[in-house]
């Protein structure tokens, strides 16, 4: 019934007069994901043959695999009606009036302009962003960098490269939602940085948010060739609102030799969202992979960016923060596999939970048999803002090489009354004092972000802290 209501909302939408002929694409009353639906999607996307076959194979795997049962409950996700999540243009068809008040308020307080708000809310196109995206594309293209949407790249000169890499790191057999992604992926970015090219400006997928179908099953494929350097930023700290409440994106990052990739992301989904995102990086010899990750919003998240340190002397750094508020269960962390010799990983994970929110750090560090001299240091800190909230740390460490150095430290704390009093004695209100302590706690993440994102993240923390007193 719930899904039907959503369909009705869309039928009343501003864009109806344009969309009447597309009505058949809504697949309104069909249940279950069938090969026909996937074929139709594939046809709309104008997929090459291999991609069509890939989708169908993924669908088979999807139908075979079980829903994961080891993490937070995703019972609220109605898998029988999964097809309604796949419906094309869902993200574009919302109506401003239907966007929940709390999200509108957040836009307001983050100071995001109206045009962008509408875009982020999945309502209407955002022309400024398109323009910026276009300009950035031109600029990096001059250096030989390819930055485009994945769908059109499938028909361009890089089609073969995409074929070689697409879902090789995250195969559809990985888990049920990876299979779902393989079957119905839509939208996303493709970036290729040729050897020895350093991209000075961070590329931001933010500018592509309003691409049709973006934000639901988007696929990000980034290939950084030998001795190249890239900073890629995904997402935005404003809440993205989608009518459908499943996000099963996939990010695949290939880092060549002596290269560097920094992948920063702020995810702030609306609070009805099941965020089941899979991210993975393969790192070559002497290269460096850096993750900066902020997880806000969503009802349930499963998010564990994974790094495979394949080449000798490769290095990974992960800096992440998770903020779980009321009715949120955010299961985040990371995985790293040390295969090469003298590889190293540094993990700094922080979590904040408040108002009954549950935040879990789940990690897996694997040192393979040939990873002589591997080093891994993990440091987890949790801040609990009240007695109803919960914070767990579940680290798994698997060492198969005698010559390795692995450490894990975890610390759970709360805001000290003394600290609040100290700050208040200098004139800060209790609310501001607490917010300052919390954003200070998050500071090692925000200082890794470009300024505008850091500012937005701090604003976001402040927003989350409003009304947390008393």
């Amino acid at each position, binding site marked *: 019934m719930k899904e039907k209501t959503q369909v009705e909302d869309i039928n009343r939408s501003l864009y109806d007069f344009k969309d009447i002929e597309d009505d058949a694409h809504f697949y309104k009353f069909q249940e279950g994901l069938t090969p026909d639906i996937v074929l139709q999607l594939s046809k709309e996307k104008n997929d090459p043959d291999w991609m069509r076959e890939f989708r169908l194979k993924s669908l088979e795997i999807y139908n075979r695999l079980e829903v994961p049962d080891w993490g937070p409950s995703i019972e609220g996700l109605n898998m029988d009606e999964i097809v309604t999540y796949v419906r094309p243009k869902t993200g574009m068809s919302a109506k401003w009036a239907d966007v929940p008040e709390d999200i509108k308020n957040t836009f307001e307080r983050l100071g995001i302009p109206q045009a962008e708000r509408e875009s982020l809310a999945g309502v209407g196109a955002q022309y400024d962003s398109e323009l910026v995206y276009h300009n950035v594309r031109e600029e990096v293209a001059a250096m030989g960098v390819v930055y485009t949407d994945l769908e059109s790249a499938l028909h361009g000169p890089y089609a073969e490269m995409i074929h070689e890499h697409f879902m090789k790191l995250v195969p559809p057999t990985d888990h049920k939602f990876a299979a779902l992604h393989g079957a119905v992926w839509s939208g996303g970015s493709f970036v290729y940085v040729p050897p020895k090219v350093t991209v000075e400006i961070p590329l931001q997928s933010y500018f592509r948010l309003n691409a049709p179908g973006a934000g639901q099953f988007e696929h990000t494929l980034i290939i950084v060739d030998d001795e190249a350097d890239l900073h890629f930023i995904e997402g935005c700290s404003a809440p993205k609102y989608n009518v459908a409440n499943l996000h099963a994106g996939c990010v695949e990052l290939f880092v060549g030799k002596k290269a560097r990739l920094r992948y920063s992301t702020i995810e702030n989904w609306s609070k009805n969202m099941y965020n089941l995102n899979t991210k993975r990086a393969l790192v070559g010899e002497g290269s460096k992979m850096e993750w900066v990750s902020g997880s806000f919003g969503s009802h349930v998240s499963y998010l564990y960016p994974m790094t495979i340190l394949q080449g000798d002397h490769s290095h990974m750094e992960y800096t992440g923060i998770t903020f779980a508020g009321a009715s949120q269960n955010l299961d985040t962390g990371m995985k790293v596999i040390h295969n090469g010799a003298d590889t190293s990983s540094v993990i700094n994970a922080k979590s904040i939970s408040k108002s009954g929110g549950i935040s879990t750090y789940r990690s897996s560090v694997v040192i393979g048999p040939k990873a002589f001299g591997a080093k891994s240091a993990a440091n987890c800190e949790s801040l609990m803002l009240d007695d109803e909230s919960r914070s767990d740390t579940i680290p798994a460490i698997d060492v198969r090489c005698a010559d390795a150095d692995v450490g894990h430290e975890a610390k759970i704390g709360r805001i000290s009354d003394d600290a609040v*009093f100290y700050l*208040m*004695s200098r*004139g800060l209100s209790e609310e501001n004092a607490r917010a300052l302590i919390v*954003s*200070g706690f998050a*500071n090692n993440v925000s200082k890794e972000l470009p300024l505008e994102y850091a500012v937005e993240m701090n604003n976001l923390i402040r927003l989350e802290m409003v009304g947390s007193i008393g």
Partner: protein
Amino acid sequence: MSQALLQVRNLHVNVGDIEILHGIDLDIHPGEVHVLMGPNGAGKSTLGHAIMGNPAYKITKGSIVFNGADITDESTDKRAKAGLFLSFQNPIEVPGISLSNFIRNAQEELSGERVRLFRFRKQLENNIDSLQMDKSYLDRDLNVGFSGGEKKKSEILQLLTLNPLMAILDETDSGLDVDAVRTVSEGVQTYMKQQDRALLIITHSTRILEALKVNYTHVLVDGKLITTGDASLIDDINENGFEKYLN
């Protein structure tokens, strides 16, 4: 005589269920320096925290009037805005915010106006110079990893920059070497040189007082003010200890 800046009347203060202060009366006028002495555990810090409004210290009876307004039930930040300042015996470490940003934040909260960055930074640098503290501390996280001496200097830096009407210094001189005490003492003197400022200094030693003209000395024992005298009382206590005030 002008009206008292701080008027404490019959102040009773509990920590948990235990009454620590049993009816304190204290008047501090603008321009005055008061020294509060007493054996360990007498309740000196309790008085300082109660005046500043620490919720861990419950006022069960009596009143505090500051600058003409009853602040007995006001929150700590309102007291700060009224012009009160407490230099902590153990300044708290707050990761993630720099000393300079914190003071700027506080200044903006206190004044309700945006701080002009260039001027502010200059003032801050002058003040930190006068405390013989390296400028790099301004950009370090608030008190994080500061030595005992640097923490106390950070308190005096805040005092000088925020410039309140009255400051309570809670053992600001304890744990400092001779040079640091002199520097801190000079900082406090600079603060007092201004018109109509007032100080309540909680201390065990006299060194911090050397550069200051002390108007009154109070002796607090077992939660009561036993006696009040002028600066000469300090010398007396230094020589003879608190013995004659103890029952």
